[in-house]
């Protein structure tokens, strides 16, 4: 091989065709070894811990209930039980409360995203956005529980309002009530609206805002005609996140809701406590269907593939 090699610096085609034969560990790490299979690891993970539980949830929802568990079979009893009890009504209320939490989060959170994008120095924007992660460093349980001394009868809010003379009697509707659940959901999940809104706005070129200044679009037109349409995929993504969590995280209504204030997650929890596993699975299946429907509608409206794609 050496004798036929020319001293020319450009390798010949023939020279490239004869690679040194790799040793066993090179083969193992090479393109036909681990490199070829490493991408299947996430798929295995996804099937094992995501797809399988979802399928099992749906399958179990049709099983027969036994005293302490369930046995294979096909019955719509769990669904009948759901739709003919107060649970269906509670589920709809849960959707409405979650929608309210989404709206409040948009009203409070999206302007923060706009403010950070438009008014904070470019170099500081990401740091400011990262600050909104700080609450997640505290246990969700502690954070939600800490709302009790704030919103309660003798809580910070009521004492303050009585001290400054705005009210005489404590406001009781803000804790152990559906309103309390909405407040708790907003407090817990608001950052998602800020993150998603900011990400969407970050993709909007500064020139766009300057064009609006040049054409004379006032703040209202700028917001309605330009900012919201361009950030729509992000707003939708944030909204779905908040809606799903408000529907499903049972902790918030457990700690802040009153007797009637439940969400879908808590209804399922209660079914598990009552050892009615098929019912719990049926409720979860209905939640999955609700979400899929929501995503489908959202995708048709906003094309969710654009959420993380820079706008050009």
């Amino acid at each position, binding site marked *: 091989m050496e004798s036929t090699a020319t001293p020319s610096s450009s390798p010949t085609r023939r020279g490239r065709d004869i690679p040194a034969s790799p040793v066993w560990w090179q083969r193992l790490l090479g393109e036909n070894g681990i490199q070829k299979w490493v991408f299947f690891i996430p798929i295995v993970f996804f099937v094992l811990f995501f797809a399988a539980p979802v399928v099992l949830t749906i399958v179990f929802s049709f099983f027969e209930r036994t005293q302490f568990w369930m046995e294979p079979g096909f019955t719509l009893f769990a669904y009948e039980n759901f739709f003919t009890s107060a649970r269906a009504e509670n589920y709809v209320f849960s959707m409405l409360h979650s929608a309210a939490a989404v709206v409040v989060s948009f009203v409070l959170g999206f302007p923060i995203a706009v403010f950070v994008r438009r008014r904070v120095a470019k170099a500081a924007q990401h740091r400011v956005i990262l600050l909104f992660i700080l609450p997640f460093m505290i246990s969700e349980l502690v954070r939600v529980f800490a709302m009790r001394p704030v919103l309660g009868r003798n809580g910070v809010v009521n004492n303050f309002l009585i001290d400054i003379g705005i009210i005489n009697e404590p406001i009781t509707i803000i804790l152990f009530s559906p309103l309390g659940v909405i407040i708790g959901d907003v407090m817990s999940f608001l950052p998602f609206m800020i993150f998603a809104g900011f990400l969407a706005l970050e993709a909007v070129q500064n020139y766009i805002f300057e064009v609006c*200044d*040049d054409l*004379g679009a006032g703040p209202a037109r700028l917001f309605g005609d330009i900012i919201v349409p361009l950030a729509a995929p992000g707003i939708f993504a944030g909204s779905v996140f908040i809606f799903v969590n408000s529907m499903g995280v049972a902790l918030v209504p457990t700690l802040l809701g009153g007797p009637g204030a439940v969400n879908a997650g808590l209804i399922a929890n209660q079914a598990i406590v009552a050892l009615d596993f098929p019912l719990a699975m049926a409720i979860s299946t209905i939640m999955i269907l609700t979400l899929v429907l929501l995503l489908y509608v959202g995708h048709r409206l906003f094309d969710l593939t654009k959420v993380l794609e820079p706008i050009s």
Partner: protein
Amino acid sequence: MRNSSDTAVEVVDLGKNYGTVKALNAVSFTIDSGQYYALLGPSGGGKTTLLRLIGGFIQPTAGQVLLHGEDVSHLPPNKRPTSMVFQSYALFPHMNVERNVAYGLKLRKVPANEMRDKVDWMLSMVGLDGYNERMPHELSGGQQQRVQLARSLVLDADILLLDEPLAALDAKLRKDMCLELKRIQEKVGITFIHVTHNQEEALTVADRIAIIADGDLIEQGTARDIYETPRKRFTAGFIGDNNVLGGIVAGVSGERVTVDLDFAKVDIAAPGTTAAAGDQVSFSVRSELLRMVDPGQTADGAWQSVPATYLETIYLGLTTSHLVRLPDGSEVAARFVSSEDDIGSFETGQAVTIGWPSGRARLHVS
């Protein structure tokens, strides 16, 4: 309108600092109505700052901007008779061409049918008839810039500001768009102020060119003035392919200045110069004026010449450059149109004499 002497833009001692960084130092100039005016200079020289001050996108630290005689220094962009075309990515990505162009009219509450007529007329003006329904991402870079142009022109602003409008286009398209811009400007007859770092672009489009560098207006003039008779050393180095040489004034006689280069003395025609004997000066000769000459040819004073050593030939397509080294070590280039390059062949290291027609070098005292 093009020959009217109305002043469209008057800038008086305009300055802008960013913190302690001076972006623009007390610049003053005027632009006549209907003129195509180019602000040309290297990146970071302050030309975009100047354009943005005129448009009202940033506020001046000092000085005034007068548009048609009215002080607009503290008015927002939409209250000025200006409209801006940005570098790129400035179309609304969620609106089609028609809605993009119509948006400014919509804000001005123009009736729908009038709006449609104006938009169609303006789209045909920029050569985009029938593109109404296209989305920005379906258009090429050149087409996107045409839409921006239409969006600005449709508002009847009488001063159009263009901030490096062709920078994102490839060379061939840029050339076509230059001619297109000039044609459109002549048709609409309003004042265009065009910022660019590309000299060919500026020479193509502009009636007048201002050279902006280091926050100062270096000099201004017609394309021909700037190219053929640059007054400042910076302009000579920036525009065209000039050879700039430095020396000391050995004597001034009438309109003729003798410059001592240490290894040769040359006479430079400089009517009305302020240079005096002993001054450090520089002069420039465009590379296409340099020729290899016989030493005897310079005797009658028609040519000025210096001794040099031949270095190499560089073929550039349209032109061919011959590089030579002067005794002080500086390199100069003589350029020929390749098809007329009858200079013959030289060898590296060969002693030659390089010269230029007397009167064609430009003296620069600053």
